[in-house]
């Protein structure tokens, strides 16, 4: 498709008022979104928020009950082959043919796109699986398997890349490796990415646009900066000593401060606008009540804080 529009304005994905229900569950409940070229977008939400259903509808794997989805200006009906050539994806749970090696699996999929061995070698080095080239996929670790899945998604130089929870269940090192590959991709290509995750760090690290969804609806969306730095609110996290009795006011929320108490971690969180005047007031209050602190920190606002403010729950609860 020749683009008459400038790349920044070209929308790669257009989702309009999409609904999808399964028996008793409304998985996706009226979602609209637009993904621009080169934009890395995170669909952030807890498990069961409807992320996978939404992504699978964009991937053409599921059909929406209602609403329209266009990819690169085209609907799935009648353009399957063309769209399959333009997108790359990895499913939430990917298992391969056990007794094929990494290289053979790559070649098999490369064959589907009529790509040669050159591209296979390129991708294998990009995803850093050169050492495992001759290993059977059944013997790969979780991280290696996800890298292979990512490599398969990248084979055809997709205009749109869709990754469904690419790092769920991986250890921090493996997760960072996947991030590294994606950041490299971002630096050198115009690929747009839609990534689902329930890790706020992942959304923050990788994506410039974040859509927070819960119960099949979009709660909030915006660029990373818009979401996190729009207000100048600061987060104070403190861990007091003492029994429930001593901390009665804090736990029950009867103090003058708006304290969010987490019973599990026994941490209090307050959000303040003006660190210089409000913080000393809070310290004075603790002194007055004779409350000793085990720990005290001031930190920037996270996406989890945002989610908690909106839903009263944590992302990874």
């Amino acid at each position, binding site marked *: 498709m020749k683009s008459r529009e400038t790349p920044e304005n070209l929308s790669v994905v257009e989702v309009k008022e999409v609904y999808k229900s399964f028996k008793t569950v409304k998985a996706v409940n009226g979602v609209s979104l637009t993904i621009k070229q080169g934009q890395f977008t995170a669909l952030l939400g807890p498990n069961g928020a409807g992320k996978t259903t939404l992504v699978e509808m964009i991937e053409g794997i599921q059909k929406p009950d209602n609403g329209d989805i266009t990819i690169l200006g085209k609907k799935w009906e009648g353009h399957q082959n063309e769209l*399959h050539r333009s997108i790359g994806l990895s*499913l939430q749970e990917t298992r391969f*043919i056990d007794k094929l090696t990494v290289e053979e699996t790559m070649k098999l999929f490369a064959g589907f*796109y009529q790509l040669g061995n050159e591209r296979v070698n390129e991708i294998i080095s990009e995803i850093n699986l050169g050492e495992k080239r001759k290993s059977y996929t059944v013997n790969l670790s979780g991280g290696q398997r996800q890298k292979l899945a990512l490599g398969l998604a990248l084979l055809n130089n997709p205009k749109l890349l869709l990754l469904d929870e690419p790092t769920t269940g991986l250890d921090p090192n493996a997760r960072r490796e996947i991030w590294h590959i994606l950041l490299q991709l971002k630096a050198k290509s115009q690929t747009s990415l839609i990534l689902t995750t329930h890790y706020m760090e992942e959304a923050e690290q990788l994506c410039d646009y974040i859509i927070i969804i819960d119960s099949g609806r979009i709660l909030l969306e915006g660029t990373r900066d818009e979401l996190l730095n729009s207000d100048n609110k600061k987060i104070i996290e403190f861990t007091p000593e003492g029994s429930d009795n001593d901390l009665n006011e804090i736990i029950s929320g009867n103090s003058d401060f708006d304290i969010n108490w987490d019973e599990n971690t026994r941490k209090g969180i307050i959000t303040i606008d003006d660190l210089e005047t409000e913080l000393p007031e809070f310290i004075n209050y603790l002194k007055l009540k004779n409350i000793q602190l085990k720990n005290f920190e001031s930190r920037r606002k996270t996406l989890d804080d945002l989610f908690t403010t909106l839903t009263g729950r944590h992302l990874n609860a």
Partner: protein
Amino acid sequence: MHSKTLMREPAVLFWGVVFPLLMALGLGLAFTQKLDTIHKVAVINPGIVIDSANRFESFLKMRTKRATDSATHKVQYKITVKDAKLGNNTYIFERTSQTEAMKMLKRGEINLIIEEKNDETEFRFDPVSPEAHLTYLNLSRVINNNKITTEDESVAPLTLRGTRYIDFFVPGLIAMGMMMSSIWGLGYGIIENRSKKLLRRMIATPMKKSYFLISLITVRSIMNFIEGGLLFLFSYLVFGITIQGSIIALLLIFIAGNVGFAGIAILTSSRTANPEVGNGLINAISTPMIVLSGIFFSYHNFPDWAIGFIKILPLTLLADGIRSIFIEGAGLPDIIVPFFALLMTGVICFYIGLKFFKWY
């Protein structure tokens, strides 16, 4: 790719290639070797002194050898009847109690019980069991010194090729092997890939769905040719089995069988993503055919009303077709009907299967 993965699973090679060979060898030996047969017979102790005029008692005393079983310390009487043509028969009589005799009968160690009474000898056996009947007839002939054949009659054992049990069995085994490897290899493979979401992943590429299925079927057919060929080669070398009919006819029926069972496999595996359900489905389809289609024993023992149905089962069509070419010397005209029937079965099942096929 598919063929490589097959080669890398040693279990696939074992069950697909080695196991049918072993089965042919085992059953072939069991039914071709004329081994000496040993019949054990329980003799119930009368608890009274038997008149020596009792014919059976005098037979035991005069003509058999008395021995004691080293393991059970029971008294046994042995007699071996030699027969160059039909093989030797050895009868072992063991004195035992009534309850012990019933136990031996239930365990299948014996099929005949003899009870001595003062004025007569009673033979007890299941009249429906042909084997028990045969033991009784043979034994009573030995005891009474009767001959079956008169001077101007003789027995000629049939060892002609094509009339032995192994000649009957090998074509059926080839047919069954084709069915099993098609339905399991193809059907179960598809179900497993669906459960792994691999099908879902593959069709999210420009891969043509028909190419995918055709490549699976092609590899499976080639495997079937190799398996069938090996089984035949083995039977030829060990049992001297030959193909008496038309090779072209054999080739055609083989191809039709592959198409037929590939279609059935696609239909069987068109929906489910659960390997356990798949397992059940495949068994539900293959087991009745193995039992009914006359692979191990002729289906002519089934009631007449069932035979019409049995004859149109795909496995029956294939097994009978291959068998007629192997041992009856059938040619092209003889296999036209099963050829088209199998082909149509395959095409229709494939078509319906594709309509229902669930890729994700």
